[in-house]
Structure formats: C-alpha cells, structure tokens
C-alpha cells in the first residue's frame, strides 16, 4: 500500500522546494513531483531509452535497483501503452557484463586504470595535436551531454571535429526540411495520427520500428474509425499486413513515384491552387549543386514533371498505373486528411535529400499541410536524434540552435553567449561521419589527419557502413587512438585503446528530444555499477583537466573555465565526481543551452517546466499569465504563436524570405550499385521489433534475445527454390566488400520480393555492415544501407 505520509511529504516538499532547488541535484532528485511510493517501491517518470517515439515509462525502484516498469498513463505520446522493448527497458541496466572500470589496452590485454589516469590520457591526446582530436557522438546522448560535447569541440578544442551516429540515420531528413522550409524538424506531430484519414508510409515499417505510434493509429480501427493505410515499400513487413494497399516498388524508384503523383495532380488540375499561390515557391537543383538550389517558375516545374507519366513511372517503379492513380486520387481530394510517415527507407538513400523534399512537395502541392491530420512527418530512430543532434547541433558544420559555423553572424552570436574571444570558433566545418572515420583509417602520412576519436553512446564498429574500409584499418595504425565510452562490451570497445564505463538512462539525470519536437526530462534514480560515470561528467572532466594544464581553449575571454558554474556566487567543483550530484549540472547546462534556441523559434521552456510534464513540444512560448504553452502545429496560425496574423500558414524561416515553402523539382538518378550478372540480388538491411540498433542493450534482455536470437537472411521462396535452398539452410551472402554466412529464413519476419534479400543489423556476431556500401547523399552525407547488390552462395 502507499505510504501516504511519505507521499504527502514528497508532494509538499515538491511544491515548497522546487523553485529553491533549481540548481540542486540531490534535493531536486528526491522531490520529483511525480514520485509515488507504493509497497516500498518508488515510482517516477522517465522517457524510454530506446527509439525516437519518446514514450514515457513509470520506473519502479526498490533497494537501489529498478524492479519494474509500467506504461505512463499521463504521457500523451503513449497514453500508458508501451512496446515489448519499452516494457523490458529496465533489464537493459542489468546485463551481467556491464563495463565497470576504465580499461587501457596493453598489448593484447586490457588493464584496469583509474579515472584520473584515463582523463590524463585523453587530455594528452588532445594536446598532442588538437586539430586531429575528434568526438563521435550519438542521438542517444542526452541534451546536456550533447551540449557539453558541442561546447568542448566547437568552443574549446575549436576544430569542429564532432559528428554523430545520427548522420547515418536522419541527416537527409534534416536537409529535406532545410531546403523546403528553411528550418529543421516536422511541422506536425503525433496528434496527426489520431485524426488522419489516410496514412502513407514511404518505405517505413512502424509496426516493428515505432510500434506505439503504429498502434496509436491502428487502434482507431478497433474503435470503428476508418484509417486507410498505404504501404509503399520494397518488402512485405508486419506493417503490410495492416495496409489497405501495398505498393511494391523497385528499390530506389521512390523519386519517380512522388514525381508521378505530382504530375497527375498538375495534369488533372487537382492540386491545391490556392495553397500553392499563397504559400509556395518552386525550386530546382543549381549548377554546381547546392542545398538551396535555384528558383524556377511554376511552368518550369510543370514541364519538368512532363516525363513522369503513369506509364513511365509504372515502368520504372513496378507500381501499377492504377495504384499511381489511387495515390493521385487521394492527394487530389481536399476532404481527406493525409499524413505521410517515413524513416530510414527515405533517409538512408543516396538521393535522401531529394526524396525528402519531394514528399514535402507533394503535401504542399496538394495542400495536405498545416491542419490536424495533414502532415509530412519524418520519424527518428534514436531517442534524442532531434533534441541532441539536430537542436543542439552536434554535427561537424553546426552550432547550437540551428546555427552554422560558416556563418560569421552565427559564430559571433555563439562566441558572445559563450563569452569566448572573437575568432575562437573555427569557420571551417569538420568532417562528417563517413569522412571522419575514413580519415581515421587513413595513415597520417597519407593525409589521415584524425589521430584520435572519442566515441560516446554508440557502436560504430557495428553500425558504420562498409566497416572493412571505414573502421578496421585504423586499428592497425600505430598512431591512431580510439576511446570508447559505453555501458557494455561491443564490437567497438573490442577494438578500442581506451574503454570508459558509462552510466546509462536512469543512472543519471537526463533530457531527450523526440520525433515530434517534444523535450523530455528525468532524474537519476539508481547508482551506476562499479565506477561507471556519466558521459557529461567525462566530457567536463576532460575540459577541466585541459584548463588545469593551461590549454587556452578551455578558457573564456576573461580567463575563466568555459564550463564555469556557480551557485550563489561560488564556483562549484563538480569535476570531482563525488560532488557531481551536489548540484544539478544537467539543469545548469540546459539553462545555458536554452538561450540559443530562440533564433530559429525553437524556444525551450525553463528546466523546471520539463520536470513538471511528460515533455513539451517546442516552440514553448511564455503566456501573459507566466505559464508556458507548447506548440503542436508549427507554421499554422491557429496554434503557432510566431505565424503572422492573417497568414493562415506562414513559413517564417523561408529560404526565400517571403514566408513561402519550396516545392522542389528533383529528378531520379540511378543508384550507385544495382543488381547485375555477378551480384544479382538487392540487399537491404534494417531492424526488427525486438532489437534496437546494434543490440548492445536488447540482446542482453532475455525475453528479447529468446524471441529473436540471431541475424538471418530473408529471401523470396521462388528464388530459394530456383537456387535449391531450403528454410534454415546456411548460405553465404556476398557483396563486393565482404561476405557473411547466415541462416536462410523463408516466410520469416518479412517477405522480400524476388531478386531481393533482407538482413537485420542487430547481431554483433554476424556483422552485415562489413558488406554494405558507404556511398552517400551529396547534401546530407548520409550513407545508403538499404540497397547494394549481392549474391548468395551455398556453403
């Protein structure tokens, strides 16, 4: 039963001390306004650790351990429901092989070292040659962690050599938003899923990858509502089983399909003339190619689409003219609300930026934009790809709050806010992820100038494409040094020179930003195992050590430490880990970061507001009565505070500075590699429901591991029969880059059409990324993991 006195005491304390404890970590932690104590179990809120959906869970803690998890009924995202990963998220803390002590490579062995020694080694690598010290981060970094890394890299070491794993997962979505609206991230939100009449999935399998969002939409059918689901894909999945229409396309032909639908809308005159006249400009690729392209007029746009007749598109894409007309019929109707969803299918694409802009263009051209249920919405795979990577800007070219290093005004603003001497911030962008690892794997004397990479919260040894080229060569080069902060041994730590044990999830304070612009906060609830420590602390301790050693970059223009924090006029010495939680360092970092968010109207509320809620969607704008109000429908006058009165819809960061969005003309180009006589299959890689990314956490959860214990290759039955292969047989999948033996699973989780294969990437014992291609999008630099050519050999 609830200890009622404890509950009342907590509630009273929460109310009384919340304001006072603004910077007090320990006291803020114990006074979470959501804390409940039932039968000796303390329950508090936290966002789930896994995907970008951003469900909230209730975390039950007893005797210093997490003992249970429940769906959070107060959470608007998931309304009390979770998926199988979310229900088992607590078990991710308790794999028996957690990393608990810093380890330094010593010949073939690793020896335990102290944290002091580890920090010294890292600072020595920085001081050796600051230019070549890179940080490889993550969409799993919390917002304060990413902000600390960002400031250390751009404002301290000042070489801009920081890029995240999110480059591999949503960079094309970013460039798609930028070239269309002039500002990143979706206009709509998950509320659209509650009201749309039609949902179009572009190479997306939310039934497995974003299950809670998928069921939020599909459960409407159980209530008697009608939702038409259209699945445009290259393989039948669990999502397909729910679809009203499955449109099977030849890989890489999505551009032709989007163009074909726009062609029909123009030809039939069923596009939204009023919306286009008031809110849209037209755009096409420039020579040389630049992200923002060049202006074209409506007639040029129309002529450019002439070739995309249903017959042509059908021939290219394999989709019937009937189905193309079905799409055109739906988009041509004003009485239907249409939401598009996509994730890796469109983003991991050598024309990722182009297809992203075309789907936005289709929604703009047809006026399916800006009202509830009408939205082109990209989903993210990581819990804070939006919050940490896209908003804090932990990318090689970016500064916090949507700024870029190449813009002198932006550099000046950031230098001012960070109190840095003028000119501290480097105007040359660092290397994007693929280039960073390529440089790391290239001998210094051949121009590989990255000598050290510090990896946090990600597993590039498993998730980079074409690891034979990008990852392993560096491990044979004497002067290259790999530092990895992680929670478990991974393919990356196995090849690291220095391994640092990290605290994870509710072992630390944190904040995430999900796919619908929602910023979320949680408090530390349990201690990390052994000597594991917060990633933010690791970064700050290195910064402090640099300061102590007299490194100029660790000082602001007044000579103070760049991460100087004070409470009541007194500097706090949080770099001593024993004192790290004397105060809430997260809150300090967040409040500093928050000042950057106004420029692009991504206003964040004070930390305390996020403590109170299950997240708020930016822009969060303060009202006359002092309260903070979130925005669900961005650019729409009825909801977005920043839209000019009378505009209806206003793209107030338009690249053409006229409040209009850009509808792009983009032509389809051949993929870098396609099936041929030698390698006759398409090879697609991806995830499965049970496992999240490289399986570091989920493969240590017995229930998930039992249900999906290893990687496999899916093939069509007809192909298997032709090759004389049977279910369960071990086969060798080969590409021009590598080979991998896998069991064949016919009629498995998905069903690829003839001539294509699918292999999931979660299994660290069967590394499919030794086979994938590192070719990438020209704008976003995001590689294409979804298609390359392969062959299958009997072993």
């Amino acid at each position: 039963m609830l200890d009622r006195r404890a509950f009342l005491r907590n509630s009273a304390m929460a109310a009384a001390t919340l304001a006072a404890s603004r910077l007090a970590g320990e006291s803020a932690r114990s006074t979470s306004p959501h804390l409940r104590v039932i039968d000796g179990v303390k329950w508090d809120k936290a966002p789930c650790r896994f995907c970008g959906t951003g469900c909230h869970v209730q975390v039950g803690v007893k005797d210093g351990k997490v003992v249970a998890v429940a769906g959070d009924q107060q959470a608007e995202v998931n309304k009390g429901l979770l998926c199988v990963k979310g229900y088992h998220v607590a078990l991710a803390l308790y794999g028996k092989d957690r990393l608990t002590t810093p380890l330094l490579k010593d010949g073939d062995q690793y020896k335990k070292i102290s944290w002091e020694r580890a920090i010294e080694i890292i600072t020595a690598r920085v001081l050796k040659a600051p230019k070549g010290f890179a940080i490889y981060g993550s969409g799993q970094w919390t917002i304060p962690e990413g902000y600390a890394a960002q400031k250390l890299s751009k404002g301290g070491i000042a070489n801009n050599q920081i890029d995240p794993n999110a480059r591999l997962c949503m960079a094309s979505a970013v460039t798609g938003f930028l070239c269309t609206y002039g500002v990143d991230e979706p206009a709509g939100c998950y509320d659209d899923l509650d009201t749309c009449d039609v949902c179009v999935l572009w190479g997306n399998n939310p039934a497995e990858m974003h299950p809670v969002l998928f069921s939020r939409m599909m459960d409407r059918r159980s209530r008697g509502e009608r939702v038409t689901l259209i699945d445009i894909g290259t393989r039948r999945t669990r999502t397909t089983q729910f679809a009203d229409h499955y449109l099977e396309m030849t890989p890489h032909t999505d551009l032709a399909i989007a163009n074909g639908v726009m062609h029909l809308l123009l030809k039939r005159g069923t596009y939204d003339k009023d919306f286009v006249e008031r809110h849209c400009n037209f755009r096409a690729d420039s020579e040389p190619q630049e992200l923002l392209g060049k202006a074209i007029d409506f007639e040029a746009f129309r002529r450019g689409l002439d070739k995309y007749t249903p017959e042509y598109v059908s021939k290219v894409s394999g989709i019937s003219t009937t189905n193309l007309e079905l799409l055109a019929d739906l988009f041509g109707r004003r009485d239907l609300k249409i939401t598009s969803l996509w994730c890796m299918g469109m983003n991991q694409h050598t024309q990722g930026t182009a297809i992203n802009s075309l789907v936005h263009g289709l929604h703009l051209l047809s006026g399916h934009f800006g009202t509830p249920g009408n939205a082109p919405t990209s989903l993210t795979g990581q819990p804070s790809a939006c919050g940490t990577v896209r908003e804090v800007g932990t990318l090689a070219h970016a500064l916090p709050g949507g700024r870029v290093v190449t813009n002198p005004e932006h550099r000046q603003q950031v230098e001012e806010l960070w109190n840095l001497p003028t000119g501290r911030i480097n105007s040359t962008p660092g290397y994007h992820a693929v280039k960073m690892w390529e440089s790391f794997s290239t001998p210094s004397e051949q121009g590989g100038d990255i000598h050290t990479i510090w990896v946090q919260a990600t597993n590039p040894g498993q998730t980079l494409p074409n690891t034979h080229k990008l990852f392993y060569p560096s491990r044979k080069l004497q002067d290259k040094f790999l530092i990895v902060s992680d929670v478990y041994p991974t393919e990356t730590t196995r090849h690291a020179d220095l391994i640092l044990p990290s605290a994870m999830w509710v072992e630390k304070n944190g904040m995430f930003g999900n796919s619908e612009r929602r910023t979320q906060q949680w408090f530390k609830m349990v201690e990390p195992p052994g000597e594991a420590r917060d990633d933010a602390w690791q970064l700050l301790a290195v910064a402090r050590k640099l300061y102590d050693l007299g490194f100029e970059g660790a000082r602001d223009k007044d000579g103070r430490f760049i991460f100087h924090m004070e409470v009541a006029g007194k500097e706090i010495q949080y770099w001593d880990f024993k004192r790290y939680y004397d105060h809430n360092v997260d809150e300090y970092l967040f409040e500093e970061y928050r000042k950057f968010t106004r420029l692009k109207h991504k206003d964040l509320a004070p930390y305390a507001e996020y403590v109170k809620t299950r997240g708020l969607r930016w822009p969060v704008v303060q009202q006359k009565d002092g309260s903070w109000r979130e925005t669900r429908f961005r650019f729409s006058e009825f909801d977005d505070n920043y839209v000019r009165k009378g505009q209806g819809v206003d793209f107030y960061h338009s690249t053409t500075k006229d409040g209009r969005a850009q509808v792009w003309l983009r032509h389809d180009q051949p993929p870098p590699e396609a099936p041929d006589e030698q390698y006759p299959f398409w090879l697609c890689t991806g995830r499965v429901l049970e496992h999240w990314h490289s399986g570091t956490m989920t493969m240590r959860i017995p229930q998930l591991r039992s249900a999906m214990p290893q990687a496999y290759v899916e093939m069509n039955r007809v192909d298997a029969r032709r090759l004389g292969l049977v279910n369960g047989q071990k086969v060798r999948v080969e590409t021009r880059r590598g080979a991998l033996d896998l069991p064949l699973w016919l009629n498995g989780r998905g069903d690829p059409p003839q001539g294509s294969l699918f292999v999931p990437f979660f299994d660290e014992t069967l590394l499919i990324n030794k086979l994938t291609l590192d070719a990438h999008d020209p704008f976003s630099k995001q590689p294409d993991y979804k298609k390359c050519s392969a062959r299958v050999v009997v072993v």
Partner: protein
Amino acid sequence: MTESLPPPVPVQTARLAKIGLVCVAAATVGFFSVLRDRESAQGFSEGTEATGPEVSRALSYAGLRDRSDPDSIALHQLAFDRFLSALPASMAPVSRSPEDRDAALQQRASRRAFNGAPPVIPHVVDQQAEPNCLVCHQTGMVIDGKTAPAVSHPPFASCLQCHVVASAPSGLTASEFAGNSFSSVGFAHQGGRAWSGAPPVVPHSSWMRNECGSCHGVSGRLGIRTTHPSRQSCVQCHALSADLDQRELAAGAQVVGRGAP
C-alpha cells in the same frame, strides 16, 4: 462479379471471416480434431444433405490457409465450436487449494520479466500474419487440455507489438551470453481483507486489465480462478487500488502547457 470467381461466402460472413484468420498452431490442432470427428459415427452420415457449417470435401494443408474458401472456413468453425464447448460452465463448482494458487502464480511468473510485463507467447506464431490472435484469445478457449486465455485488456490491433514468442522461430538459435541480473519485486498475492468475511481488494494494477475473467474466469488457472464465476461484475465487491493504477498522478500532476485547440 465474373464467373471465374469462387462462390460468395454464405451468411455468417463476419464471424466466418474472423474464424478464417486462424493461427497455424490452432489450425493444425483443429484440422486433426475434425478429421477424427469425421471418421467417427456421429461425424458424418452418408446420404444426408449437408446443412450448416458441414464439410463436404477434403482440404489440402495449403487449402486450410485459404481465408476465402468456404470449406476451410467451415472446417475451422467446427473446430472452434468444439473448443468453446470444452470450457467449463460458469455455474460449475470451483474447488481449489493454496498449492493450486502457488502453482498458478508460479506459472504466471514464468512467462513474465516482472509483474506488469507483457507475458511471452508460449507457442509458435506466424511471424508475418496480421494479428489473428483474437480468434482464440478473444473469448478464451481450451485446446487439447491447454488454455488459451481471453485477453485481459481491450483488444488492441497490434498484439505482437508487446507479446513476443518465448522461444526463437525454428532455424534461429541463441548463442551464449553473460546473462542478466534483473530481479523484480514479488508477484501480487492474495489481496487484503478488512475482516475475515470481507471481499479481498484487488492486489494488482487494473490498468489494461479490465477483463478479470481472463485470469480469474472459467478458463483461468485453477489456483486463481474465482469460486463464483457466475457473478460478472467483479469490481462491485473487489475494490481497485488508486495507487497501483497511477490515479494519484491524475489528481496530483496536471498536464500543463497544453496548446490549442
């Protein structure tokens, strides 16, 4: 409709269509139990005009999976009628011991990571099929001595989102791993009573457990089965816990900053 299409599915279309969506395991059991029936005297009598959901021709295994074939549908209908009739009557007396309770709770615990975690699926499922779980799990039934419990929560659309199979699909094998030291708090035991004759309060969260009969009804495990299954309104006498159901939160924490409309 052209002549080449199969004849339309008769009368009970809605129910039969649902019955047609059968999971492989149940289909196989069903097929054999009906086969046995047809060989017995009562099953099929020569010269009689087949009426109702009678089977008029043998089906191949492939035919069994054909969801539009009326014979396939009828075959499954027969099987399911048998399973449903195997459920104990709601007026049948229930006698149970503390050992039965322990056994039931132990079995329950064996299928969950912790109290509140979705149970794993103890049988094979079609990894690709649209969720047809409700064919068996909507009302609950007894198949070959094994109970398929009715779902305890409202029927959400995507069952496999939360429930995964307990053991890997054939052909996939798990390698060794270091293991996991997570340990949960104990499972709910008997709810407290105000005095010896008072109805016990509900000792677990009722969130997503609106169908008490799922565990406590006539097809529930004996140890936790109600002694009075004929009474349908459980929460009339057994009080729910606001604490366990997160209802304190609703009163205490407001959703702030909610935008229009």
